[in-house]
């Protein structure tokens, strides 16, 4: 069972096809699978549908696939930081489906857990509820949302062991675990692959059963909103 691949391109070999549905981890530019996105750009795969909380910025994250017009549709909760995204959306080149952030996360989690639909109160009485089944439980109204089943999951973790057990770091965990579970195949990029047995089994964030291929690489880890306080103010 070798899950380790030498490069992002090798890790994606044989998995990409035009028109496919990809679930991606990350929040803003934090914890995004930047190496795998770059490899998808190099592969030139087209008409992609992405489920991803955000769409990156113009020159980083999913934004690089918008520049090359490889994306047909985005399923996201917030896409505010991307000018090329807005241009393509307003000109009708790009489809967009807004999901509330928690609904998007739960659609991924549900899909990965074999649950085809679930009821939520999020969005009741809003545009999000239009055309969806409504059902009352204990006097409160809920809407039916569907689990998500992707062709491929691409995620970023901090460390993996050789069997694919993963550990994420701080707030870079975000959408990565739910996104990892909802694809037929899950490819993970990590900062470090460590020997099997060196991670504490009680502290695995995502078990290797969800992980099919792993690649290690250098990450840029760009900061979107660098915000600091001065040491004087703190005194």
């Amino acid at each position, binding site marked *: 069972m070798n899950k380790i691949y030498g490069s992002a391109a090798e890790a994606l070999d044989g998995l990409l096809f035009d028109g496919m549905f990809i679930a991606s981890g990350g*929040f*803003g*530019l*934090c*914890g995004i699978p930047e190496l795998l996105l770059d490899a998808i750009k190099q592969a030139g795969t087209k008409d992609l549908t992405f489920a991803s*909380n955000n769409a990156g910025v113009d020159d980083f994250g999913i934004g690089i696939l918008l520049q090359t017009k490889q994306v047909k549709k985005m399923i*996201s*909760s*917030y*896409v*505010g*930081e991307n000018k090329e995204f*807005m241009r393509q959306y307003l000109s009708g080149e790009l489809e967009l489906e*807004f999901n*509330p*952030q*928690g*609904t*998007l*996360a*739960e659609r*991924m*989690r549900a899909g990965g857990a074999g649950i085809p639909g679930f009821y*939520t*109160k*999020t*969005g*009741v*009485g*809003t*545009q*999000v509820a239009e055309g969806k089944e409504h059902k009352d439980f204990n006097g409160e109204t809920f809407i039916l949302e569907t689990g998500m089943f992707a062709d491929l999951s691409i995620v970023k973790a*901090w460390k993996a062991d050789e069997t694919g057990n993963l550990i*994420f*770091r*701080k*707030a*870079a*965990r*975000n*959408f*990565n*675990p*739910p996104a990892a579970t909802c694809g037929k195949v899950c490819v993970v990029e990590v900062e470090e692959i460590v020997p099997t047995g060196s991670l504490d089994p009680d502290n695995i*964030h995502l078990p290797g059963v969800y992980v099919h291929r792993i690649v290690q690489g250098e990450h840029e*880890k*760009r*900061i*979107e*909103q*660098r*915000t*600091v*306080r*001065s*040491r004087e103010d*703190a005194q």
Partner: protein
Amino acid sequence: MPWDRNQMAERAAQELEDGTYVNLGIGIPTLVSNYVGDKDITLQSENGMLGMGPFPFEGDEDPDLINAGKQTITELPRTAYFDSATSFGMIRGGKIAAAILGAMEVDENGDLANWMIPGKLVKGMGGAMDLVAGVQRVIVVMDHTNKAGETKVLKKCTLPLTGAAVVDRIITNLGVLDVVEGGLKIVELADGVTEADLRAATEATIV
């Protein structure tokens, strides 16, 4: 004098109960954390963190440590990290005591609009719809009128909703209003603001 941004944030901070978990939105709500005083409040950031600390000192920024506004932040001794599905599980599941959010419009039914202006650039609702649907108490903090001087406290919201009948309390530069049966009830007036001033700036029914 109506309240300024900081005074609104200070007033909103009084709403927070000691020992609770709270989510603060972007803008004036973010300032609320400056006024919690001695209260033991744990801030939730919906991208996957409880126990959000202050902004880092220059040079200490960590790209793996951001809040829901994508800003670099720090952790505290109590901090816990988790994934987005777990994060919205605790929001939807009612474990978060309060959310303090900005708004474009609020109405007398407690409807809230704060995510979309049709015909203008649409950025998305982010986590706002989940928060207003799930947390125990929703507190809106906003200016009473928009830049054109028109009221934002309406009989019926005109913009696409973030949630229907979700708002509990509204804190504006003119005072504090509660959503009650039949309309809004004045709880408090800002210093120097009369009830007539507040009524004149409000379209919603005041009971």
